[in-house]
């Protein structure tokens, strides 16, 4: 099938194309130089053309998402998706899998990374991937509290740790190293937490600093496409900005050596909004976003995604078990908690970010501050779906960024006055243009995930994942911006039109991307001995039953990485 997209205004930051009127040709699922006369014409006059969106951090599939769905039937009732020819779905903050896929696609997103996969329950994540249409997927297994990792890093055995990570990525069909509250979730197994970067983990006697630094070294030793993906300690606690800065600093000096992709950074700080809090309690709570933004701007090794609070009723879920307990004690709402044997833990709590709440308003402002003061090459749009708000609110976040008028309407009329008093969002005159929006919603993500060879741009050879939005580049009406980005005019996935006028017209299933890393055979044998020992002594499952097996292979797309030089 051939297509030619005519007269659209193209924004493609990875190729430096900023609002040029040009035609895009598509053939057999790829973007090509030219097409024959038989190509179908898509008229994009009056529209902007961008690469398909890439979400680098979203909780869309797996055990804790499903706990959210199960224990929040009242959320299920809040939004119902029923369109002819498509599977029905429900849920506002924790939508069912089909609704997730369709709605991402409606917004022009074509690739989504599941942010936290407990390795032991990887099958569940992949099971849900099988039922999530329209998007390419990948999942990041959790390593920051894994016993094997803690032991290897304690001994300083980076190579063995690297081999273990390589084995785990292949066994769970994972994509990157995710670290959540390093050491803290393990400490939660003792009913404790870690509160600073040098607070030792009970029993293992290793510090979060050693875990983060060690895994960053492992990551670059293996040459993985994505850097370590870190949710630092002390999430959501007033005064945590210092921990955040220290964590960013602790990996300084490590060089990015990806074997695939064009990544230049070694540290990805996710949902940075939750980590930029000043003050000592909720009473003197204030924004430290400027300090964080300043550090990120001047350092070459770090990028952030924001985790913008959207001021909705939502469901929080994270592998940061102790933090969810704190949250439950704060708002008194129902709480689910889970311990994943030797690997991690998790918690789920519903949460209402009321615009009238002073603290929530400051959280909202901190997110916007990070967007407005950070270099747009180093920041990415997320809402940490569903923790700070559902992904269907991305268009609203875009509208806040593109229109100061719309932002001010919220700042002065809808949210609590603390947002003006305790942050610098009111002083920012910056308005994003569409080029910058394209950066923070697709280009930056593709680059930092190491997928920029084929994703996140519109150059020849790229996958034909294309979003076309009906919007005037000078538009400042917040409502119109929101509508344009919520319902794309056209979306192409793999060279096929899948969305037309905001409606999904074709259901198709994307690929599941994972890493197939080969390390030296001798080393792997040694490490497997340790793995077998752990399974024999501690795991509740047999080693043979552990890896995600071929039954879950729907459309697997492995990225092969040769690290056999590690012996």
């Amino acid at each position: 099938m051939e297509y030619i997209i005519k007269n659209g205004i193209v924004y493609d930051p990875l190729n430096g194309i900023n609002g040029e009127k040009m035609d895009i040709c598509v053939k057999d699922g790829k973007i090509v130089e030219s097409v024959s006369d038989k190509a179908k014409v898509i008229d994009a006059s009056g529209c902007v053309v961008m690469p398909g969106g890439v979400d680098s951090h979203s909780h869309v599939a797996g055990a804790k998402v499903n706990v959210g769905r199960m224990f929040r039937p009242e959320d299920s009732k809040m939004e119902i998706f029923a369109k002819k020819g498509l599977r029905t779905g429900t849920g506002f903050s924790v939508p069912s899998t089909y609704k997730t896929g369709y709605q991402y696609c409606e917004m022009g997103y074509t690739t989504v990374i599941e942010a936290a996969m407990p390795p032991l329950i990887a099958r569940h994540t992949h099971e849900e991937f099988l039922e999530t249409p329209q998007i390419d997927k990948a999942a990041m297994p959790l390593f920051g509290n894994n016993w094997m990792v803690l032991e290897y890093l304690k001994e300083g055995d980076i190579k063995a740790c690297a081999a273990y990570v390589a084995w785990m990525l292949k066994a769970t069909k994972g994509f990157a190293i995710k670290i959540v509250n390093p050491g803290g979730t393990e400490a939660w197994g003792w009913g404790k937490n870690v509160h600073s970067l040098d607070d030792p983990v009970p029993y293992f006697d290793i510090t979060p600093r050693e875990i983060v630094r060690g895994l960053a070294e492992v990551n670059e030793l293996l040459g993985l496409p994505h850097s370590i993906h870190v949710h630092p300690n002390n999430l959501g606690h007033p005064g945590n900005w210092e921990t955040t800065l220290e964590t960013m600093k602790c990996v300084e000096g490590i060089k990015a050596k990806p074997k695939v992709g064009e990544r230049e950074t070694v540290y990805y700080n996710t949902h940075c909004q939750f980590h930029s809090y000043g003050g000592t309690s909720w009473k003197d709570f204030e924004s430290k976003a400027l300090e964080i933004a300043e550090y990120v701007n001047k350092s070459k090794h770090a990028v952030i995604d924001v985790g913008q609070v959207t001021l909705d009723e939502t469901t929080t879920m994270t592998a940061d078990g102790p933090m969810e307990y704190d949250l439950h004690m704060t708002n008194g709402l129902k709480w689910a908690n889970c311990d994943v044997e030797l690997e991690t833990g998790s918690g789920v709590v519903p949460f209402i970010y009321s615009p009238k709440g002073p603290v929530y308003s400051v959280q909202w402002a901190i997110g916007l501050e990070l967007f407005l003061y950070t270099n747009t090459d180093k920041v990415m749009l997320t809402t940490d779906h569903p923790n700070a708000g559902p992904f269907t609110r991305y268009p609203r976040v875009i509208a806040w960024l593109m229109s100061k008028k719309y932002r001010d309407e919220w700042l002065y009329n809808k949210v609590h006055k603390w947002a003006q008093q305790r942050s610098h969002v009111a002083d920012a005159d910056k308005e994003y243009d569409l080029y910058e929006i394209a950066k923070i919603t697709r280009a930056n993500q593709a680059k930092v995930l190491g997928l920029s060879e084929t994703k996140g741009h519109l150059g020849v050879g790229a996958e034909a994942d294309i979003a076309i939005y009906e919007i005037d580049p000078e538009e400042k009406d917040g409502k119109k911006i929101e509508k344009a980005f919520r319902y794309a005019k056209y979306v192409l996935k793999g060279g096929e039109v899948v969305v037309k006028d905001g409606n999904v017209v074709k259901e198709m299933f994307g690929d599941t991307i994972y890493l197939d890393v080969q390390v030296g055979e001798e080393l792997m044998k040694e490490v497997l001995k340790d793995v077998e020992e752990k399974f024999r002594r501690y795991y509740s499952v047999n080693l043979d039953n552990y890896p995600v097996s071929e039954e879950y292979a729907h459309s697997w797309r492995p990225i092969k990485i040769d690290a056999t030089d590690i012996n």
Partner: protein
Amino acid sequence: MKELILTLQKEIIVPVEMDKVLPEVIEKMSLEEIKNIELVQGRKRVKLDDIFDVELNDIEGEPRVVIKNSNQKLKYIGSKMTKGEVIVEGDAGMYVGAEMKGGKIVVNGNADSWAGQNMKGGELLIKGDARDYVGSAYRGDWRGMSGGTIIVEGNAGNEIGEFMRKGVIHIKGDVGIMAGIHQNGGMIIIDGNADVRVGGEMKAGAIIVYGKVEEVLPSFKFEGIVENPIIKLSKKDEGTPVTGTFYKFIGDYVNRKPKGQLYISVDSNPDLI
């Protein structure tokens, strides 16, 4: 104003959702339009006159819907209604008066579970029995009934007034277990007997039981015996006078600083303490 009389033609097997047939809706419609109202039946849609005989009269006063020959297959009767009157001749299915904001529903028969779920205002009168979850919250929700009055002349089932915040539930018969569970305001009056765990995990509000109570949870604190108490639900509340002699308890102390009041008739429970 208009009066719509619906007579169910024959027994139906698959339940029908009646939430589109409300007094305020039919008020503005012609007979032809009313006959063509689409109702959800299982996974299909049916027209109103496929299953009902439809009759439309002009009457004095508020608009009214009368459902004759009704049975428990008719769900969501009067759901989300704001004014007027719905009269059910026969039994009502699940969710009768769910999320209703105003007006009045009279069920001249029994009602299935979830009657008056998340009710916000108005009056729901059930002349027969009601099953479980009378005046409760939606499944999973912690924000329950926030106003209005529910009266059940017969017995009611388990977990009535779950997560209730405001309003009144008056059961003239007996109730099952866990009446007023998680109650956070409002008043539940039970004329008959109550099974175990009355007021479990309640934080505020009041429960009055005139009949026999199986047990009082150990997490309730005995405050003494009161005569003809005036029950205040908040500081500004003028209070509701109640006649009789009661044991008064405060609870449930599984919560921090609970303000829930539990009154249990001394006459019916001479050996309780």
